[in-house]
């Protein structure tokens, strides 16, 4: 059981990230709301105490790496990075504007604190495997965290990466699957279904857990368990709701118009919650 202060910090950060996502997309007028909101709780956990980083030294060699393979969740990552001091909040209002440092999809050349360019689905896990292999070869203590989408796992390259990581026992690699059940064309179960992640991953020689992706306590405990497992990579499947905490929960929300009034309303509702 995670201690109360840690959970409170994670929850507070997740709320701050959600508010910033709504501010960014409300200000720009549209964007990838659903997949950004669904990983806010994960980022709240990672950036409030789990990950080692120094926002004044973004490329510090001792940092833990984070790769957001579902690169369209850039706004969530930017919300987290600015909350922990990588760059000023004023940057957020430049999201997607010409010349911005905060493009729709994550870009390591543009955004301070982003470890890898992503946005072309199915490729970030292989990058994370490369990072984790380097960590293992150099016998370092860093961890590499990576999040992929569940729809993204329809890409064949994901399974090539899973196979190599399992075979090579990359135990500094922790994978999160954002299992929100939706993709661009509809529900994953209807388009090209993929389920039983825990069993599938175990058959690739991974340790795998299924948790509530909106419960900070469960995510923290799962990460602790994952770190205690040696000689195999670890996956944490996050059961999530696409668009969680926004007006767009339950409707098509992969990428949609966001009115300032809707964003404001959601922000007020979030502020009322503990």
């Amino acid at each position, binding site marked *: 059981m995670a201690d109360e202060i840690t959970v409170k910090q994670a929850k507070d950060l997740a709320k701050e990230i959600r508010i910033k996502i709504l501010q960014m997309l409300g200000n720009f007028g549209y*964007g990838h709301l659903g997949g950004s909101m669904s990983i806010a709780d994960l980022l709240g956990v990672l950036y409030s105490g789990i990950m080692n980083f120094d926002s004044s030294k973004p490329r510090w060699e001792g940092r833990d790496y984070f790769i957001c393979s579902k*690169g*369209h969740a850039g706004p969530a990552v930017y919300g987290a990075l600015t909350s922990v001091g990588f760059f000023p909040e004023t940057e957020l209002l430049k999201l*997607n*504007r*010409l*010349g*911005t440092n905060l*493009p*729709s*999809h994550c*870009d390591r050349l543009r955004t301070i604190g982003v470890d890898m*360019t*992503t*946005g*072309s*689905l*199915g490729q970030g896990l292989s990058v994370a495997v490369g990072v984790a292999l380097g960590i293992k070869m150099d016998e370092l203590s860093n961890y590499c965290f990576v999040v992929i989408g569940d*729809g*993204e796992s*329809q*890409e*064949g390259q994901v399974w090539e990466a899973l196979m190599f990581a399992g075979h090579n026992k990359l135990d500094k690699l922790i994978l999160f699957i954002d299992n929100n059940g939706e*993709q*661009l*064309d509809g529900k*994953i179960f209807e*388009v*090209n279904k993929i389920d039983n992640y825990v069993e599938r991953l175990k058959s690739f020689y991974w340790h795998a857990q299924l948790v509530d992706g909106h419960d900070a306590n469960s995510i923290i405990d799962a990460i602790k368990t994952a770190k205690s497992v040696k000689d195999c990579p670890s996956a944490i499947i996050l059961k999530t709701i696409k668009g969680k905490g926004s007006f767009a929960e339950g409707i098509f929300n992969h990428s949609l118009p966001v009115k300032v009034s809707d964003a404001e309303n959601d922000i007020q509702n979030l502020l009322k919650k503990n």
Partner: protein
Amino acid sequence: MGVVFDKISTRDAFGSALSELAREDENIMYLSADTINSVGGSLMHSEYPNRAINVGIAEQNMALMAAGMAASGAKVFIATYAVFASMRICEQVRTFIAYPNLDVKIVAGLGGLSGGIEGVTHQGTEDIAIMRAIPNMCVVAAADAASTKVITKAIAHYDGPVYLRLGRGPSPAVFDENYEFEFGRANVIRSYGNDVTFFSYGATINRCLQASEMLNKEGIYCRVIETPSLKPFDTEMVLKSVNETSLLVTVEDHNIIGGLGSAVAEALCGKNLTTPCLNIGLNDHYGVSGECEELLDYYGMSAESIVQKVKAKLK
């Protein structure tokens, strides 16, 4: 000259033509990679759910499923975004669609800078170069909704691999239902005189038309030639233009390496001609995030910027 945008996108115009084709020819199939709604498949899917198939986010599987279907007699349209259509599935396309000369049409939404705010990962600005280099592959690009419909039907009647580049949102309207398309033929759409010939395709055509009007007022008389067929390419039109005008200008939302500018240069190579050429496009770099039309301006493809470059070259 004000710009009027189409009511529908080139992607939806493709979908409309596709559904008409599907009604006429039960041999036509459509595959998408989680892009059935975003690259024109929803209409055909509503009428023929078994013939418009979504394979999920799995472009490589989609490409070779299409090869298999074509190898067993179907005419297959596969649809995704230009970056994935030209790069993610490049080897699948080259070796298992183009080499066996299979009847697969690769339909690429978000061509050029139309990927806009999605940034580098979704801007297909090298696709024409890559696809032109693949033997057997025909490479075509549509400028607006009306021409997209005509081109979609024309490529359907051709038996072999074709890459079709589309945009994202509604494009500036240039053509109407009387538009004509033929593989290997360029279309002269303005002919004011013998000073400058513009060659262009897709999103930059209307900008060349605007530039030619502006130059016309300054006594520099231009021709504007649309090159929807980038391969096979109308080399005769290039040679005719070079003989009749003083400057050739290519404009494209593509890397200046390997695209239309290169096709024109290839046509001129070895002819011992001295007519100057000006290639306007992306100067071997990636695009930043921004709205499509503002990106075209940002990268020197506004009518004003084109005019300036032409005048500087003519000096």
